[in-house]
């Protein structure tokens, strides 16, 4: 049995136990999917604090609706949809989208090396790419984030967002075309 299959079986067991009310099992699911849920929301909304808050809210909603979860969709896909909705809900409740630049702590995680000037250029480049993604329409942004950053397949994205496969493909194509046009010079330099 492959490692992937063993992990899937373990997770299925955790989900079953959690559905029976086992909080320990649910806590384990939270540990497993915490980073993914936070990052999906972060990529969608651009605010790490909001992302953590939304991810916590997503886990609470997931617990409340766990009896309705059907294994036909991967747990991760199901959770990510809840997380994206929670993030967008929190974002809408804010009076205006915070003009949050990537924090210094985030940018300090960039690989070291090179001159100061190169470092500044890289930071600026990262910020431009981040903003370009945040400016995409929500539907296209969600598909792009799930594909590029979480590696979900088209089918998993369709299940997560409850949209047809064709819509996944058209939104992804649109998102990539938009980003290519907007970041043309940077794309050429890569």
């Amino acid at each position, binding site marked *: 049995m492959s490692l992937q299959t063993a992990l899937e079986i373990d997770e299925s067991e955790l989900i079953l136990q959690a559905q029976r009310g086992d*909080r320990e099992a649910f*806590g384990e699911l*939270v*540990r497993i999917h*915490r*980073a993914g849920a*936070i*990052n999906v929301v*972060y*990529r969608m909304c651009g605010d*790490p604090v909001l*992302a*953590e808050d939304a*991810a*916590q*809210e997503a*886990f*609470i*909603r997931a*617990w*409340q*609706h766990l009896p*309705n979860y059907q294994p036909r969709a991967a747990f991760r896909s199901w959770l990510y*949809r*809840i997380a994206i*909705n*929670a993030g967008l*809900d929190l974002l809408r409740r804010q009076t205006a989208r915070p003009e949050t630049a*990537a*924090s210094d*702590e*985030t*940018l*300090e*995680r*960039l690989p070291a090396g090179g001159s100061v000037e190169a470092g500044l250029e*890289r930071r600026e*480049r*990262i910020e431009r*790419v*981040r903003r370009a*993604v945040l400016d995409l329409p929500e539907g296209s942004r969600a598909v*792009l984030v799930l*594909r*590029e*950053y979480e590696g979900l*397949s*088209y089918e998993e994205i369709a299940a997560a967002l*409850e949209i047809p496969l064709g819509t996944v*493909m058209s939104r*992804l*194509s649109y998102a*990539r075309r938009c*980003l*290519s046009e907007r*970041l043309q010079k*940077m*794309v*050429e330099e*890569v």
Partner: protein
Amino acid sequence: MNAHADSWIDAYLDGALNPSQVRQADTHLRECPRCRALLEERQALSALLQEVPPAANLKPERQFVAEVGLRLARRQDVAASGDWRTSRQTSALRAAWMLAPAALLLAWAFVQTVLILSTLVGLVPGAGHLLVQRASLDPGLLAAAAAGLGVSFPALPEVLTEWIGYFGLFNIFHWDLLTGFIALIFIGGLSAAWLAGWWVVRQNADGQAKR
């Protein structure tokens, strides 16, 4: 796959093509510089997107999990608590909602019974005359009850009683086809309203679950 890559380049990049389609795409890309350039552009974009780091400076895992547990407990306490009166009212409303279909079924059965008895009364010679005699002895009945056995409903608003009387609903056991039809339409309307309400509640519950 002779068409240019615009429609399939993303699927090719994401490994979503089947082996046969991949072979065709590879052949086309070998021969078409335009599509090769498009592929390289997409690959460069993907590399650029990967340069953006994930969220940093997050809470420690243990703290995050503990906070989820606390928020969950708090949410469940709020849900469980609440004014006992409100919960009793809610239970009563819910019971009434669940019993509504049974009540509508009984009402339908009642109307059908009255229609059948009205037909039987009509078949018995002289029965209509007897009913009119009974009605004429009580001057307090509504004018619409003159043709049959009248019933008075003093609690109902006057306009409503006039309308009900107009359609002969007070003429129990002497209903005509129109009266029965009106009654069934009314019950049908209530049933449809209950079904619509049930569907809306169901949709809201599904929407909540998905969110």
